[in-house]
């Protein structure tokens, strides 16, 4: 299997906080990959470094064999990495269709047709003329997915697609991801909803304090001692100096 996206030894700090520490991950082409870890473990920072929203202090990012480290977000997008955001970034006063046309700067009939097809695919075509701000939170997530799809990226990064979304829409989003994956699309998904991640992903990478502590199939990751330690925290015990225990 070929590696589509990989990071090598990425470091990123904000002030004194080391958000990513020698972070090395790889995503195989054609897989649905999950990226999990406790709050503050660096998941969104890794997304930001990959997509050019944050600059790596050190380390590299590769798409296929092309080095894309610290490329600007629009360039990364044009190279084939689409992403959504944890808190949806839509233009609330533009219509759903107008939102769709922003990333491709489209005005041609063909762009509208393609945009409408994607809206139909995610199931919100009926709202194409409505202001995007009138959509529910879950529908906004579907809109983000639809406009990422217009660009037909090689890999799609989804930041908490199921967060704050009701169960029937969560299932709808999962169903769309499965269909797209069956057609060959690669995904990297950050998500806290474990049933969603474990049920959907082929491979799961676990971050803790900016470092990969485990990677493998869901069943393996779920029973990994280091993963449990990451989520349950370190027992500081009655040791006089817990700082030495790390």
């Amino acid at each position: 299997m070929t590696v589509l996206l990989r990071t090598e030894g990425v470091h990123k700090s904000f002030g004194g906080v080391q958000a990513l520490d020698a972070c090395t991950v790889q995503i195989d082409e054609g897989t649905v990959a999950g990226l999990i870890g406790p709050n503050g473990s660096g998941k969104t920072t890794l997304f930001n470094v990959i997509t050019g929203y944050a600059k790596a202090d050190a380390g590299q990012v590769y798409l296929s064999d092309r080095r894309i480290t610290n490329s600007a977000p629009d360039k990364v997008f044009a190279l084939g990495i689409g992403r959504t955001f944890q808190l949806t970034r839509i233009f609330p006063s533009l219509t759903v269709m107008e939102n769709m046309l922003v990333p491709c700067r489209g005005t041609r009939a063909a762009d509208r047709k393609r945009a409408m097809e994607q809206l139909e695919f995610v199931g919100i075509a009926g709202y194409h003329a409505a202001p995007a701000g009138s959509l529910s939170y879950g529908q906004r997530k579907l809109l983000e997915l639809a406009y990422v799809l217009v660009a037909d990226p090689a890999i799609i990064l989804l930041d908490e697609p199921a967060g704050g979304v009701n169960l029937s829409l969560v299932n709808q989003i999962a169903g769309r991801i499965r269909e797209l994956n069956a057609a060959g699309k690669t995904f990297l998904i950050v998500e806290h909803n474990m049933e969603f991640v474990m049920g959907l992903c082929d491979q799961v990478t676990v971050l803790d304090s900016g470092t990969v502590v485990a990677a493998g199939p869901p069943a393996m990751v779920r029973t990994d001692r280091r993963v449990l330690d990451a989520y349950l925290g370190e027992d500081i015990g009655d040791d006089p100096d817990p700082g030495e225990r790390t």
Partner: protein
Amino acid sequence: MTGPDDSPAPATGAALGTGAGTTVRSVLKIEDLVAGYGGGDVLRGVSLDVAEGGITCVVGPNGAGKSTLMASVSGLLRPRLGSMLLEGENLVGRSPRQVLRLGVVQVPQNHSLFRDMTVKENVELGGYILSDRALTARRLAAVFDVFPQIAGWAGQKAGSLSGGQQRLVEFARALMLEPRLLMLDEPSMGLAPKVLRTVFDAIRQMNAAGTTILLVEQNARAGLRLSSHGVVMENGRVRLSGSGREVLDNPEIGALYLGGVP
């Protein structure tokens, strides 16, 4: 110990077993609480007791409802169903100010000191609803007895303290009202592992001085180890409860965090 499948649910009487055969009064008694924002329920029938004189620690994965539980108790969010009794007094429908006057004090997750004011001024502000200056002074002295280290920083600007030190000052500020119930929302958030011990020791100090504590904690192991009672929430419900040690040692806790529980 009660798990998801082996009901009975946590003690529903006025008293709560401690495992040592003695019974302890509960300061806060929550039953079948349903609460949420907008269209959905976040808490879906939560029942729990906070035993007087103990530390009750609530843990659980993201989205379990821990913060919603705190917001409900403190009056920031009005629950849709269920009851909350503080030593028999109804809390449902009370404003945050009323809840505070009843003696429930919360230390929020994010740092909340006035950085340009001194440590002493910040601590005194904890007593802003006290109208008696002499009482305020007596309380301040009592708080400095619990936290002698803070007395040494009294004249410094709060903004000059480290994150862990600021946390201690926030605790001290909360003690000014001699709370019947002190609620701590993820006090270890954002603190380096070394500082954790200081903060957890401070929680012990407050408890040893007689304060009943409801602790929500992201570091489940450290929080449960510290606590007399432990509760694991997941998806808006209480899934495990027992003594802190029992919950800590229950292998199901991992599955509740990482999925795989039916």
